[in-house]
């Protein structure tokens, strides 16, 4: 802790607000709405309709539209947003902040207003909340909860059929940050889109983190002026003046570098991108008053994140379950796949995945050639066509459990996109798959 105090501090933040009372001045109607929501959630679970998180939040919001701001009042809230890594980073951050006390967290990844309401209602007395928020909903949620810290991870193309160009999303985030000048932003210095969004507000105070991301397919044209951006990763600048800010934190070789101090970070989660997520969480944790070394120790214990990176045994196969839902996510995931290991790719194209499967053509699938591969999921034919043109020999079977039978026994990598991942987890659980970790 002494070492931390001596460091060059990031931009100052306002002192922590005092929690006034356990009820946080919410009012009796909010309490009624919250109870009704909990009852609806319980009913939904009993009827087998799902985990009941979303319905819980929706019922509460329907009865009391201001429930989110009322439930957040008096708490210090961190919002975590960006295209990839929201769920992982919010889990890491929640683990770090729990070393100091109870934390409300939308752990299931229900990341719109209803999910936030459900999470806050589930932990009404926690003085701190970590909320993963969808990029398109950040402005609305920030208005309701007046966050102490906003974490901006990265912005890349994802679900373009939602009618959102990446640059438009960045502009909306910039607007949200400008509306909260007292909020401190923890932002990725390597991502030009994020830097552009975070530097719009003249009064913004930002803690910059270099996460060392691999992919910049959307960033090659400057978000400010539209010309080609030169350089990538930790060295980029545009002739219009937009340039990479000097980072306060750097994710580097199993460690976080804070100025010249090196803090080892040993994670059970694989990959450079998860190290980047962890270092970003450390920066946010420090702003919330948790010592980075203590944060790192707590984060190192996390075995998986809502099932991602979990290992499940099913019919003599040890499945490593991975989630990748867009080209940037895949680019990161390719770095963690073992090149000798059989691979199952499962892709759906439902509402939550984005209906347009074009993104498959921005994944460098050429890299996976040479191992046994099976394409599965509701859009297995799209994957199969893509794999053929990438020169990857494969089989195609829609049902992912049937597809597994075509792969050799032993360890198998499974990469699925959003709804495909959750479907597969449910089916594995139902079929008696055992979580080994």
């Amino acid at each position: 802790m002494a070492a931390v105090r001596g460091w060059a501090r990031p931009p100052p933040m306002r002192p922590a607000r005092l929690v006034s009372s356990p009820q946080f001045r919410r009012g009796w109607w909010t309490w009624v709405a919250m109870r009704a929501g909990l009852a609806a959630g319980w009913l939904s679970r009993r009827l087998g309709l799902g985990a009941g998180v979303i319905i819980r939040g929706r019922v509460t919001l329907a009865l009391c539209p201001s429930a989110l701001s009322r439930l957040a009042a008096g708490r210090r809230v961190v919002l975590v947003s960006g295209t990839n890594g929201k769920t992982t980073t919010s889990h890491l951050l929640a683990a770090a902040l729990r070393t100091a006390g109870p934390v409300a967290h939308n752990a299931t990844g229900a990341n719109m207003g209803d999910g936030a309401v459900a999470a806050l209602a589930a932990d009404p007395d926690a003085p701190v909340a970590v909320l993963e928020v969808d990029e398109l909903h950040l402005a609305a949620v920030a208005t309701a909860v007046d966050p102490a810290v906003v974490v901006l991870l990265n912005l890349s193309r994802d679900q373009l059929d939602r009618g959102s160009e990446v640059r438009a999303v960045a502009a909306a985030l910039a607007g949200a940050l400008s509306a909260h000048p007292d909020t401190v932003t923890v932002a990725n210095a390597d991502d030009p889109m994020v830097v552009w969004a975070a530097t719009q507000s003249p009064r913004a105070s930002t803690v910059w983190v270099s996460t060392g991301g691999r992919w910049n397919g959307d960033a090659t044209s400057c978000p400010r002026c539209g010309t080609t951006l030169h350089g990538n990763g930790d060295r980029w600048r545009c002739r219009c003046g937009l340039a990479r800010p000097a980072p306060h934190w750097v994710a580097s070789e199993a460690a976080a570098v804070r100025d010249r101090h090196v803090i080892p970070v040993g994670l059970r989660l694989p990959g450079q991108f998860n190290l980047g997520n962890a270092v970003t969480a450390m920066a946010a944790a420090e702003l919330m008053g948790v010592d980075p070394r203590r944060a790192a120790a707590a984060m190192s214990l996390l075995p998986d994140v809502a099932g991602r990176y979990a290992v499940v045994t099913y019919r003599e196969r040890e499945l490593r379950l991975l989630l990748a839902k867009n080209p940037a996510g895949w680019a990161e995931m390719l770095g963690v796949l073992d090149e000798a290991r059989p691979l199952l790719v499962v892709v759906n194209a439902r509402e939550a995945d984005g209906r347009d499967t074009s993104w498959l053509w921005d994944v460098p699938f050429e890299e996976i050639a040479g191992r046994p591969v099976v394409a599965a999921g509701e859009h297995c034919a799209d994957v199969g066509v893509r794999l053929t043109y990438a020169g990857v020999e494969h089989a195609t079977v829609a049902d992912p459990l049937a597809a597994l039978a075509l792969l050799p026994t032993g360890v198998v990598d499974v990469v699925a996109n959003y709804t495909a991942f959750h479907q597969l987890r449910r089916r594995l659980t139902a079929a008696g798959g055992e979580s080994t970790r």
Partner: protein
Amino acid sequence: MSAAPELVIGVLLPDLLGTYSDAGNAVVLAQRARWRGIDAGILCVTADTSPPAGCDLYLLGGGEDAAQLFAIEWLARHRTLRRALSERASTFAVCAGLQILGTTLTDVQGRCHGGLGLLDLTTAPRRRRAVGEVITRCVLPGVGLLTGFENHRGATTLGIGVRPLGQVLSGVGNGVPPASRRPAGRTWPVGPSSGGGIEGAVTDRVVATYLHGPVLARNPALADYLLSRVTGQGFPDPDPPEVPDLPGLRRGYLSPTPPRRARFRSHLKPW
């Protein structure tokens, strides 16, 4: 070193017009050419290079609004490339690429920008974005049904110098009916779904469409049409055994769901 490939496919500005993975069209073309014994190569032409004018086929993809205006300025600035596009080479343009090649382009703020003028068409913003699956019947010989995913805010009016690429069976497409079906005295586009049932634009040298997918991955016959136009060879079999998943993919996208079947019939009248 090997000699230059017989067929060179130039992907123009993938750094600016790469939002919807349309560069995959080049991969499809090159691979299909190679399967037919034609040595094909792909040249990616980014904004910071000076573009070669000797490619046989140029591809333009979809992109965001700011990038689109930059692309018009860039193409206009490189005169030898522009001359190649208008006089010699073939061009396949998708979405923003289609709009860029037109004569004018009005943005969401209502400002009108000049296009490259290679296609006799103008584009104005629609009130609502057109997003979703599209099926069209292609007018090009032997191509048949086209499937793709549209995601645009453009309402494109074709002039007399271009033909539509296809008749819309489901989806929006250009969003403006052909001149013959437009009531006199009304300005187009009107309303959120001005309908009209045509998609894309075709001339001797240019094939342009709103469809992503990438569209040539989903529609091998259109890929082969472009290849035969550039090489002068015919390719009778649109489903070569090399892509075993293609029939399944096309079945999935082309099999009409019940409501779509109803819309099919209503569109079958000639236009």
